[in-house]
């Protein structure tokens, strides 16, 4: 089963060479960006959100789906990326592009250290450890003055550069700019991961995950494969964290709550953790949960209790239902088959 899923994914994307895949993704991205002229501010905001969630979910998929490790603390890794970027931008006056890169590098180094420390941990141990990290890390912001305490650090990269505004034309709002920023990054990320997972690096991860002993006999250093997967995953998460901070305009401990880590896991499970193509679906679902539950809340009479708790309720219900009924991800066919089997 495990083999067949990964094999199907591999076969599906192996038909394309990296170059063709890049062209395809570029066309897709261009279409999306052209679409951005047709939609209002809210949709651009949500579009940027989808792109950022897609990067963050792919970090979980690399880790869980292709290397068999679990993290309940990727919100904390995002926080590291966000804080490092904001520090570099606001305190050390990096240009924002380099600030984002700096944040990603810091997150990568941190992820490598964490990966080395946790390569020996399995399943629930790793889950609990990363959970403890997600709980413990945000409190650091109050311990060191430079991190700005509860107020956080501002991270305002300003308007779109002039050349972009000239090239695109039309009214260039703030969120449309973020959409233009996040979407290409997400697409490059996507291209990078699909290629990586096709390469022998990805194959060694899957081998180490599916059968560690056999992989070891075949000459794969299992511990190193796991650490590398954790490192790549962390660098993706911290990149997403930096973009997230750009979109918020600041970083605070409250911006990276425990529920963010849980939301990423939800997104990855909906996407199907062994399934790269599901990432967009997962991100779309995550972004549409607040909107859907908003509509539902109006229907239920919009009291403060309902509006505050309905999104969480919908997300957790979805998570449980998908894990039990469609463990390979929320694809309509898979869901239908599972229900039929269950009530047979």
């Amino acid at each position, binding site marked *: *089963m*495990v083999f067949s*899923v*990964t094999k199907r994914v591999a076969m599906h994307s192996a038909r394309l060479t990296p170059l063709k895949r890049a062209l395809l993704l570029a066309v897709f991205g261009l279409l999306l960006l052209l679409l951005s002229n047709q939609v209002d501010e809210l949709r651009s905001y949500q579009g940027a959100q989808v792109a950022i969630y897609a990067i963050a979910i792919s970090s979980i998929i690399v880790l*869980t*789906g292709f290397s*068999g490790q*679990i993290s*309940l603390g990727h919100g904390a890794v995002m926080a590291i990326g966000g804080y490092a970027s904001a520090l570099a931008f606001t305190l050390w006056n990096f240009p924002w592009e380099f600030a984002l890169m700096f944040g990603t590098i810091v997150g990568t180094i941190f992820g490598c250290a964490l990966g080395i*420390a*946790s390569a*020996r*941990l*399995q*399943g*629930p*141990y790793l*889950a*609990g*450890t990363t*959970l*403890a*990290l997600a*709980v*413990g*890390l945000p*409190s*650091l912001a*109050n*311990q060191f003055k430079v991190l700005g305490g509860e107020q956080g650090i501002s991270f305002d990269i300003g308007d779109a550069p002039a050349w972009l505004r000239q090239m695109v034309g039309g009214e260039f709002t703030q969120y449309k700019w973020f959409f233009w920023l996040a979407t290409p990054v997400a697409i490059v990320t996507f291209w990078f991961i699909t290629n990586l997972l096709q390469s022998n690096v990805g194959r060694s991860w899957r081998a180490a995950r599916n059968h560690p002993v056999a992989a070891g006999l075949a000459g794969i250093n299992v511990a190193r494969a796991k650490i590398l997967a954790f490192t790549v995953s962390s660098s993706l998460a911290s990149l997403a964290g930096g973009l997230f901070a750009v979109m918020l305009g600041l970083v605070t401990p409250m911006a990276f709550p*425990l*529920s963010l880590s*849980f939301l990423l*896991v*939800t997104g990855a*499970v909906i996407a*199907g*953790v*062994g399934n790269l193509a599901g990432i967009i679906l997962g991100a779309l679902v995550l972004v549409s949960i607040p909107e859907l539950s908003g509509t539902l809340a109006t229907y239920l009479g919009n009291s*403060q*209790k*309902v509006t*505050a*708790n*309905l999104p*969480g*309720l919908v*997300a*957790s*219900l979805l*998570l*449980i239902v998908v*894990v*039990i*009924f469609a*463990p*390979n991800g929320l694809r309509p066919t898979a869901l239908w088959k599972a229900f039929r089997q*269950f009530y047979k």
Partner: protein
Amino acid sequence: MIINTLLIGVSSGAIYALMALALVLVWRSTRVVNFAQAGQAVLSTYIGYETMARTHNYWLSVPIAIFFGALLAAIVDVLFMRVLARRAQQGPIAEIAPVITTLGLLGLIHSLIGLIWGNTFVQYTSPLSGKGFTFGTHVIPFSPQNLLIVLTATGVMAIFAAIFTFTDLGLSLRAASFQPEIARLAGIKVDRVRTVGWAFAGATGAVAGVVITPTSYLSPNSLDLLLVTGFVAAVIGGLESLIGAVVGGVVLGIGFAFILQYIGPSVTFLAGFIILMVVQLVKPHGFFGHKTSRHA
């Protein structure tokens, strides 16, 4: 000064030990770290709070909350864990499916509580004073409520020790957790025994909730941090051993009290993470675990 810190440590350590005990009981019976335990405990505490609001009797609300905690845990096991054990045996997330399900349950319980009682902090008070005992002019940071916490925790541990050592139920619980196949052949209804294990854990979590909450406040998330400290305590003890969980809890409580006293409040939970990391690297089976029991 050191004695004061120790007293604070023992009182919070007793609570960590209860939470660790709840996690260990579930781990032993089903091989799942139950992250929903924080949610189950806080929901049971809300039931206690509701009873208190209606009857104005703390001593009545405690047993009701504990009973509800046991019932809720049994329901979780029957409705979710059994279904999961039957269905999600394969596929890319088979190994992590239980962890993720308990995570979803945690979120579900939080939102349900928010829907029913709202997300604001509420007070769930006990008739015992929260002010420290006074000796002459000297006030120690140990109140009658703290005494209740320590006594209850000791009581719960004594009850479990008795059940596990002296009763048939205890024997079948141990058998079902160590050799489920052989236990089944010996005529033990393993599924039913597991549910009993869950119910014990749920009750223990509820006890922790109802005795600790009067010292602070109650909100849907108020016991989440306790889940993490309880997990750290359980891992120190090896995640298998009931005695280990208790010792781990008390040691962690005292350690945290000293960190709080001499370093500062905001690093406490990061210290928890570091302790967890160090224990796992130095002693992967904890200080009370069996060497062979790690894989399972």
